[in-house]
């Protein structure tokens, strides 16, 4: 089985719009939304949820006031200043390291497991989909990304499907790192702006760091063709396959408003044509 992860570094370059369009073009695949922090793919795929699971990960310290003698050891040991002077744990600041729980001489600190999100197995008009929602202000996004990709892979194996199409998170930190391990390849969706170029370079470096083969496409190419060509040149210089260019096409926004991908909305639009070329190129590279 192959996995293509779509990432971008910078947010809002069009990752999800590209994945949603690929959903109409790829055949035997499972969709996976690994942008668990701000998942949007389901707004297009309209999943019918078949399985719903709580996501439990990490712990938070809770001080039992009746047992606490206010000795202050926990406050001395806590490196996050998460315990107030009146001995209440700030659950937002608590890192879940358990040091206070371990050392409390009165055993006054409980350390319950957090439920910090949900994950789903669904059916969509494009095929099965694994997706998730991290609770607001929660930690452990990387673990949820890893879990949802594993569930996506399981689903693909069960159904004898040969591709996992994963919508990745923005950035280069914990969730993105979790979305890369074991992937067949990444497709970087860049935009031809100074920010887009800066962020693309960092995400290329990240893919390099984890030795994941990368492909690249530039979205909204005509907004700044010079910058677009500079991004492509950078990619080629780094032996990254340039899979195509997508023009600025308002049909992307229009299709999103209607809950459709661009292929469904207008399969002969310039954006659709461009995405089709990129998909054919990616398919060839993936060997499917």
């Amino acid at each position, binding site marked *: 089985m192959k996995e293509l992860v779509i990432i971008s*570094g*910078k*947010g*809002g*370059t069009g990752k*999800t719009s590209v994945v949603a369009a690929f959903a109409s073009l790829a055949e035997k695949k499972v969709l996976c939304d690994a942008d668990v*922090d*701000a998942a*949007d793919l389901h*707004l297009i795929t309209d999943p019918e949820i078949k399985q719903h699971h709580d996501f439990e990960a*990490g*712990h938070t310290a809770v001080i039992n006031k009746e047992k606490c003698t206010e000795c202050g050891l926990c406050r001395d*040991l806590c*490196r996050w200043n998460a315990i107030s002077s009146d001995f209440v744990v700030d659950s*937002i600041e608590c*890192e*879940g*390291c*358990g*040091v206070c729980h*371990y*050392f409390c001489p009165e055993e006054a600190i409980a350390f319950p497991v957090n439920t910090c999100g949900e994950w789903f197995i669904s059916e969509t008009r494009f095929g099965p989909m694994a997706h998730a929602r*991290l609770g*607001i*202000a*929660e*930690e452990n*996004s*990387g673990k949820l990304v890893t879990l949802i990709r594993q569930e996506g892979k399981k689903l693909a194996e069960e159904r004898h499907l040969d591709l996992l199409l994963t919508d990745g*998170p*923005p*950035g*280069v*930190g*914990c*969730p*993105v*790192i979790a979305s890369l391990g074991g992937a067949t390849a990444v497709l970087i969706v860049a*935009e*031809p*702006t*100074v*920010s*887009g170029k*800066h*962020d693309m370079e*960092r995400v290329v*470096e*990240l893919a390099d*760091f*984890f030795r994941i083969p990368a492909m690249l496409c530039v979205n*909204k190419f005509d*907004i*700044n063709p010079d*910058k677009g060509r500079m991004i492509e040149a950078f990619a080629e210089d780094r032996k990254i396959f340039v899979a195509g260019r997508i023009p*600025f096409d*308002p049909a992307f*926004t229009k299709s*999103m*408003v209607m809950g459709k991908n661009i292929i469904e909305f207008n399969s002969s639009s310039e954006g659709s044509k461009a995405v089709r070329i990129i998909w054919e190129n990616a398919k060839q590279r993936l060997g499917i």
Partner: protein
Amino acid sequence: MIISVASGKGGTGKTTVATNLAVSLEFAVQLLDCDVEEPNAHLFIQPKIEDVEVVTTPVPEVDLKKCTLCGKCAEICQFNAIVVIGETVLPFHEMCHSCGGCTHVCPEKAITETTRELGIIERGRRNGLEFVHGLLRVGEAMSPPLIRKVREYTRSDALTIIDAPPGTSCPVIASMKDADFVLLVTEPTPFGLHDLKLAVGAVKVLGIPCGLVINRSDMGDDGVKIYAEEEEIPLLMEIPFDRLIAEAYSRGEMIVDVMPEWKERFKDLYRRIVEIAG
């Protein structure tokens, strides 16, 4: 006063709003770019960097001569960052959250702390504007400790504008916590609305007043406006889609560079924020 500019969804225009606001105001302002995974504000502000510092976090180092392989360090570690394998103890520095638990628990005092690099902080100026940003080392997973370090440069005698990362999880919380106001920037699309709702949820958890800027306000639908009315989130500014703005942005230019009349609008935006935040 601290204003944190956040969005939920990426690419809605946080940096555009934060940078234009920062250069439009004519008093002491500092801009802290806390999107340390992908900081962009410097590309527009182009500050003269005056200081660079490497930020590190403590991680354990084991003296195997003293270690008795008792395994207490592995037992206390919640992050699987130190394990006993056969006749040795292996710390995994990249997984370590720097809680100090293993160092503290070791009965033989065989564990001391060395450091792992999180990234760098660069500080500089553009005219009167003070600029600070963090740049997470590529390959480093944990951004919140670096964000907190950037925020240590907050000064009480200036207006602090924070450019936050996208999303709603720990890095965003680290960038919004203790702010006096959160300025949410969104686009009027289903994706923008969905992620705006998440961001509003995060702001509510923290109990901070907020207001809304709608970017590319004429591309999409009415969903965001209807939601803002229902939730009584004040709409403070609308920026229509303008190819001139998009092209200027692509070159690293700010709105107020190409359309100086927008300076007054950003000043107004600030006035309205002050009215709400008090």
